[in-house]
């Protein structure tokens, strides 16, 4: 009976935790939608911004944000997958494993503003690449690298040994085992990591505002070495400096659009994950 009571208590506390999370979720989204929705219109989504954000729309900001993040994901994914596979399948040495862990976690602990400064010193000043969206993508990919790597590693590493043994007994070489058996499974983890990473990176201002973005005056970039406008830097500028209430309203509208972008990413990832076959746990 005592055990049963404990069990019920446990269920209750789980319920409370879920309730709190749900409340937080709905509260935050409620506020963003409540404040942002009035600003949204077709014009807002298809026009360029003018009058310090008070009129016009945010089409180039949306484009810039997507461009930055898509390239960041493209740059990050292969490196993260490779590192995760190495860590899970090739690395035997305990010391080396610790070293890699340390590297990955400490990369994760670098504040985003430091990434910005690093980008400024290294890419813009040392390599003289100028203010360019591509540098921004590189910096963002560095930022999300640890999350994606660890999440991929976790799901590859949790595949039971029998699967590796069974497939190598069928004559698959190590790389085929990785591609055929481990990667499909690790894929789901990579998506999770990428999603958290991308969701984080798309809203970042500090790392890109010195090296990759412009507030106004840019449209679609025609090369890798031009700045773009992005949603978070736009929001930041408006929220900090706009006196016009219309501009502040548009800042909320931009936030809503940013969140919707993340939602779209999540939903597509959801479909990828649902379609994806994972090793059953039966």
């Amino acid at each position, binding site marked *: 009976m005592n055990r049963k009571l404990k069990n019920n208590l446990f269920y209750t506390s789980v319920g409370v935790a879920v309730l709190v999370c749900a409340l937080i979720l709905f509260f935050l989204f409620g506020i963003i939608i409540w404040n942002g929705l009035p600003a949204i219109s077709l014009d807002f989504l298809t026009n360029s911004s003018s009058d310090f954000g008070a009129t016009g729309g945010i089409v180039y900001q949306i484009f810039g944000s997507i461009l930055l993040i898509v390239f960041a994901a493209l740059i990050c994914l292969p490196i993260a997958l490779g590192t995760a596979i190495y860590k899970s399948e090739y690395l035997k040495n305990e010391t080396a494993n610790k070293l890699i862990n340390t590297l990955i976690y400490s990369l994760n602990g670098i504040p985003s503003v430091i*990434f910005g400064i*690093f980008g400024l010193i290294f890419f813009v000043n040392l390599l003289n690449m100028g203010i360019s969206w591509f540098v921004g993508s590189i910096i963002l990919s560095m930022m999300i690298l640890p*999350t994606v790597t660890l999440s991929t590693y976790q799901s590859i590493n949790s595949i039971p040994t029998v699967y590796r043994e069974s497939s190598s007994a069928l004559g698959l*070489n190590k790389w085929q085992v990785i591609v055929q058996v481990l990667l499909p499974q690790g894929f789901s983890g990579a998506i999770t990591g990428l999603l958290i990473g991308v969701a984080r990176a798309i809203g970042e201002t500090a790392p890109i505002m010195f090296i990759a973005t412009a507030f106004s005056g840019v449209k679609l970039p025609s090369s890798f070495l031009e700045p773009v406008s992005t949603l978070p830097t736009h929001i930041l500028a408006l929220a900090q400096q706009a006196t016009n209430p219309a501009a502040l309203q548009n800042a909320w509208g931009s936030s809503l659009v940013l969140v919707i972008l993340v939602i779209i990413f999540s939903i597509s990832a959801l479909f990828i994950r649902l379609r994806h076959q994972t090793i059953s746990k039966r």
Partner: protein
Amino acid sequence: MLGSTSKIGKYYVYGSTLISAFIVFLIFTILIISSWDAITTVGLDLLKFQWNPATGEFGIIPMLFGTLVVTFIALLIAVPLGIYTAIFTSEILPSKYRFIVKSLLELLAGIPSIIFGLIGIAFFSIWVQNIFDLQSGRTIFTAGILLSIMILPTIITLTDDAFHNIPDKYRETAKGLGLYKFEIIKEILLPIAKPDLKGAILLAFGRALGETMAVMLVIGSIDRIPSPIYNWLSPGQTITSKLGREIAETSFGSVHFSAMIFMGLLLFIIVLILTILSQNSLKSNRRLYE
């Protein structure tokens, strides 16, 4: 031909790992070079309590203190909340809803930190101000709460994955022995998932340490250790909020700039030390389940 794909694959994973490692070393090197000025000219005076660039005082202790306290509060709230919620999504919720609920919660991670900051100012700081009857709700505590919400999705989703990766046979077998769900979770799932949980918490810790915009807007930005020291309902400063507020205005190459970078380096080192300390539980390279 078979051999060659294996070889290319091997080069690829070695290469990726080298790139990852190189990135960290590169950043580390740049941080050290950029903060060298401060280390040599200010030296031990960095460990003082006064920060005033005009008079050449660069004491970082208040910022360090704020960073640690804010992160502590954030973890204190987010870790239990996140783990309990992850238990719900992976162990209690029917699996067909799991992805949906999980994806919903992951959306929390998609709220940009500047928005968190604005909401923090408009609501959380007002609540704190009213509940505790303070002069101002921009406090260390408020920043901690805000930060806990920001790291919540990381903890939830990684913990959920860790639980989900545990084969069902453990649950079935434990059930077959007449255990209640909470016993199964406590005795089987948590121990098995522990290395991954530590990893998730460490990741969240890193994110909490490095979060800039939201914290900057709600913490009050006073370079001061609260008095008494446990009065976390007073404004303070974290390293990141300091960086966020000041770095763009400093002139590169100055001692001021260098001292700022030194604080970034310090965060890096804190995470480094913590990772090394928790290494013993992170060596999950050994696979648990046969």
